Structure formats: structure tokens, C-alpha cells
């Protein structure tokens, strides 16, 4: 097996992992801060892809779609939190889970009614069509762009959480919401923003995945399963965990595809089983966490 092939394979794995990271991130942030297991995450990923496609065709530019869709769908997420999820805080964890599960069906069916159940083409932005010669082989420009963009989003997110005052409130709110309220912080507004951020990240994942896959109403269901696997391996609620696990899964799938391609999908579930056996709380999870 020659080295250039393995390098190319690693790179495909990182690109695949990047999409996993961005989708799992929204799921894990919402769970970590709000204790809500968002089963509508996959459907919102799909809505993001449709919104991106719609906005791109409206404005004539992929870039507007990429910028506006996450903002718009993030705002829609805040509406969902404000109208529906807010009422369920303090109740059993099953309640928001069931609510979002039902919501995902409504969203998928709504898209089927509006856009039809057939797939719709999502053209790759013209600047990123084609392949780039990396010396060891050719790699699609668009996938390189996805890796770079996800890296940039992660840096911005990390800076915002670790270096800003808002980040400080968010981190403290995740640890002890009651004390935060006593200190005079309107924790409801923080949760609203966090849910919006989580949904916005799902939508961003959807827009990024659009040009790599065809856009259809069911595209979110597989993504939801993958995102759950990533968050379980990384540790529920852990941002670092989501990043490490996402890349780990992407690279594992890619390297397994090289030797036993038919096992490529199973490998991520095998990884999850192993992690659960050895470290049930996930790689970066907190032991015995109850929400």
C-alpha cells in the first residue's frame, strides 16, 4: 500500500470528520448547557440545507446562503425554544426528547409538502468546483474548504466561550443555573441563545453538506444517528469531546474503507460500543452526570 494513498485516505477522513464535528457540536452544546436531548437536530440540519439552497438561489450566491441560512434557522431555533421547549425545563428529560422527536416528523413532512420528496440538486459554488493537486494526489477543493471553515468556526467558538464575558456566563450557567439566577443573571436568555446557537450549527452543517450530497427531506435522519454516536463517544455535553470523536470517527471510517469497505459504517458503532464498555461517560464526559 503506498503512502500517498494513505495520506489521501486520511484527508478524506478529516473532511468527513469535519462535517460530523459541526453537526455533533450543536447537539452536545444544547445537551451540555440545557440538558435537552434534541431529536429534531437532524431535521434542522436538513432544513438548514434547504434554507441554504433557497437563499443561494434567491441571491444567486452560495455565500449568502452559507451566511444567512444558519442565522435564519438559528432564529427559528430560538423561536422553538421560546414557544415550546422552555415550558418543559425542570421536568423529566424524556419530555423535551419526545417533543423534539415529534417536531422532527413535523419538519420533515412540512419540507415534503413544500419542496416535494424528491432530491433537489445543490450546486457546488463555482469557485470551489474541481480538484486541487496536493502533490500526493488530487482532492476536491470544496472538501478542503469545509475542513478550513469548520476549523475557523471551532476557533471562534472556543474564543467566545473562553475569552469573553458572555462565554463566562454560559460556562457558569451550565454548572449551576440557580446560583447564576441568584447573582442576577437572566438564565432564560442564556438558554435561548444557546439553543439558537445549537440549531444554527446544525443548519450550518446542512448547508456545508448540501453540495456533497443531494438535498432531500430524509437527509437528516442518518446525520442525527451519526451525531449521537459522536456525542456519546466524545462524552455528552463535551465540546472538546465532540471535536476529537468526530475526527476520530471520520478517520476510522476512512481507513477501514481502505481495507474492508463494507465495514465502513459499522466501524463507528463498534467504536461506540468499545468506548461505552471502557469509559461509559465518553472520552471527555463527566462521570455520573445527571440532568
Amino acid at each position, binding site marked *: 500500500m*503506498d503512502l500517498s*494513498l494513505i495520506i*489521501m*485516505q486520511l484527508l*478524506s*477522513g478529516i*473532511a*468527513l470528520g469535519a462535517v460530523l464535528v459541526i453537526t455533533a457540536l450543536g447537539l452536545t452544546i444544547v445537551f451540555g448547557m440545557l440538558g435537552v436531548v434534541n431529536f429534531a437536530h437532524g431535521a434542522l440540519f436538513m432544513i438548514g440545507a434547504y434554507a441554504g439552497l433557497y437563499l443561494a438561489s434567491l441571491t444567486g450566491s452560495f455565500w449568502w446562503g452559507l451566511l444567512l441560512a444558519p442565522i435564519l434557522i438559528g432564529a427559528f431555533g430560538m423561536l422553538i425554544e421560546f414557544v415550546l421547549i422552555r415550558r418543559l425545563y425542570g421536568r423529566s428529560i424524556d419530555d423535551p426528547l419526545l417533543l423534539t422527536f415529534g417536531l422532527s416528523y413535523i419538519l420533515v413532512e412540512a419540507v415534503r409538502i413544500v419542496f416535494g*420528496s*424528491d*432530491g*433537489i*440538486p445543490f*450546486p*457546488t459554488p463555482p469557485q470551489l468546483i*474541481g*480538484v486541487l493537486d496536493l502533490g500526493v*494526489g*488530487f*482532492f*476536491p477543493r*470544496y*472538501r478542503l474548504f469545509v475542513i478550513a471553515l469548520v476549523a475557523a468556526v471551532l476557533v471562534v467558538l472556543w474564543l467566545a466561550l473562553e475569552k469573553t464575558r458572555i462565554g463566562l456566563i454560559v460556562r457558569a450557567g451550565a454548572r449551576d443555573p440557580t446560583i447564576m439566577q441568584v447573582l442576577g443573571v437572566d438564565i432564560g436568555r442564556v438558554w435561548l441563545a444557546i439553543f439558537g446557537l445549537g440549531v444554527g450549527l446544525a443548519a450550518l452543517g446542512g448547508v456545508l453538506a448540501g453540495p*456533497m*450530497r*443531494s438535498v*432531500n427531506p*430524509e*437527509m437528516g435522519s*442518518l*446525520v442525527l444517528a451519526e451525531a449521537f454516536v459522536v456525542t456519546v463517544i466524545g462524552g455528552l455535553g463535551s465540546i472538546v469531546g465532540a471535536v476529537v470523536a468526530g475526527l476520530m470517527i471520520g478517520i476510522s*471510517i*476512512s481507513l477501514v*474503507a*481502505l481495507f474492508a*469497505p*463494507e465495514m*465502513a*459504517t*459499522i466501524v463507528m458503532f463498534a467504536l461506540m460500543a468499545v468506548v461505552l464498555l471502557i469509559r461509559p461517560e465518553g472520552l471527555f464526559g463527566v462521570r455520573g452526570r445527571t440532568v
Partner: protein
Amino acid sequence: MPKSGSTPKITRRTALAGLAASAALLAMPRLGRAAEETIRIGFPTPLTGPFAAEARDQVKCAELAVKLVNDKGGIGGRKVELLVRDDKLNAGEAATRTLELIEKDKVHAVVGALSSAVQLAVNEVTRARGVIYVSISQSDTINEAKDFSKYTFHEALNPHMTTAAVARQTLKKGMKVAHLVADYAYGHEMLRGFKRAQTAIGADNVGEILHPFGAADYSTFMPRLMSMRPDVLCISNFGRDQANAIKQAVDFGVKQQMKIVVPVILHNQRLAVGPDVFEGVVGGANYYWGLETQSKSAAAFNAAFKAANGGAIPTDYGAYGYSGVGSLLAAMQTAGGTDTDKVVDALEKLQYDLTKGPQHYRKCDHQSVQSVLVLESKKKSAMANDNDLFAILANDSGSDDMLRSCSELGHAT
């Protein structure tokens, strides 16, 4: 919990069987009145799930076939009714719905199914109850002796026919061929067909990669496929897998190095990813509306479909719904009713031409002998209008030579 749930199910089934038996007894004195009874055709198809688009086209065309017969006064004065059921692309669901169609709705025959596993499940039920089943799935395992019964008919093309026709147009002696194959019955059947054809032509196999069914990402297979340096890449998968695999292969620059070939090129998937992605991809098909310039039957079918569907054109899978139901109704017409043995006999003798030229069911395995189209996806600038998707590279007229022999399938000759 599941235990207590399954017990009443069995009793219900027993009750159903009992009901059916008593209904049959009651029906006996009514034989004389059978002439007025409507003819009911059961039609299981995956209305929900990844093949929903294809299934909807099947239903539209099956309804059209029924309407055309009813407009001419039905069969022996009896109206025909189509009972569409969603099989959800699930073998268990399909078996339950088919059983219901037979025992509760008392259908006279069943037409339909799209996936290979669902087709087997439907066939299992109809065979056990002696009900005629005309399959329109592109997989043909039910034609092999072990699953076959005299009630089993296969109207669709089979993997052997399409891969042979596509290989003839695209492979040459000494060419290097690589395969990307969906890891389930359909993919394996197509791979077997391609390998048989490439051996006959003298092309070399340089590698096969099996991918999981329903995968969303194919990028991890691309570097290895490209390192095999083939002249032709055969992608044997179905539905959205086809669209996603081709799209991602194109992203990786595969088309600059090799030609992409598929066993069956899908109308709806070409629409789903656009002309640039599919440009130059070659694949087989049972039907393409553009055939109307070569075939009067195609022109008539297109016109009837357009009239019934606001000017839309029929698709490949739609045509199966039309010819599957149409051939059955033609045989019932000859048989003068719904007597199963007479209809089976009529189907075996039937010569029909509904969408694209003469077809008939081969006696030994009830496979429909028919023409195979080989299509090439047009580039955007060459398209005259939005419906102008493909160029017809070949239209191989049907002959028994296209099929695997009766003895190869395990039938007595």
C-alpha cells in the same frame, strides 16, 4: 410487553383465516353473480422512504393503465379497481399488506414492489395462496426455480439483461474495469451481471469495492478507486445511493480519468443532482420518453400519460407500473375474467406492446422478454428542454438470447 402484544396478533390472524374461509363458503352460491363484481388489483409499492419518487410514478402509471381499460368498458363488463398500499420498503410490512389485500380486500391479483427483498416477501405470500403476482422490481431472484411458482411473473428488466446491454456499449477487449457496489442483493446481482459480461468481452477486472447500503458519503472509497486506474467505473447501486455516489465521484475528478457506467440510469436521480454531475454517464433503462421518435407505442403511452397528468412525462419506473398492470389486464381480457388458471395461461401466451415494442413472458420462468435501452446523460448545453435528459445510445430489441437459460435458473427444460 412484546409477548402480550404478539398473542392477540396470532389469534387475529387465525380469526382472519377463519373469516376468509367462511367468506369463501358464502361466496360459492354467488359465483353466478361474479360478472358484476369489480376486478381488484393489489399494488404494494414503497410510497414512503428513499424510493418514494419512483413509487409515486409507478402508481400514476398503474392508475392510467386501469383507467384506459375502464374507459373502454372494463373487462367483460366488470370495472377494474387498483388498491394501492404503502410497503414502506420493508419486507415485513409488504407481507402484511399483501396478506391483507388477499384475505380482506379479496384482490384477484397483485402487481408491484420495487426492492428485491420486498418482491421476495410479496411473492412468498402470493405463491402460498395461489394468487397471481406480477413483479416490477429490477431484481429477478423470484425467477429462479427455488422461489418461482406458476403464479409468479416478472415484468421488469433483470440485472443480467441491463448489465449485458450496458457492457456491450461501453466495454472493449483489454479495458480495465473497477466496481463500486452496494452491499445487498441488488448490488450483488448487478455485479455478477457486469462480471459475466466483461469476461465475455475480454475486459479486465481491476477491483471491487462494496459499500454499505444507503451510505451518504462515498469520499472514503474514491482515493482507492482512483489508485486502481481503471478505464471504466461501474457503480451498481440504486436510488439516492446512485445520485450521491456519482456526485462525489465527480467531485473527486473521477470523470477526468475514467468513464462512469451504471446498470440502470435513474430518471429521478438525474433530476436530483443535475445535468453537470451526470454528464456522460451511461446506463441501461427499461423506458425513456424520448423513445417516442422511434416507437409508436411510446408515443401513444406518452400522450395518454400527459393527458392524465397535466402534460408531465412518464419516467422509467412509471412505465413499469403501466406495463405490469397493463399486461395483466390484457391477459384477463383474453381469459374473459379473473379465473386464476385461465389468466396464467393467457399471460404465458400473451404478446403485448404497451410502451416500447413487442414483449412476452418466457414460458419457463415468466420473465418478460423485452427491449433494453442504453442511455447517456446529456450535457446541459445539449439539452433541448428540461425533459431532454438522455441520448439513446442503443435500443436492443428483446430476444430469449438476452436471458440466462431456463436450465441455468434451475427450471426443467
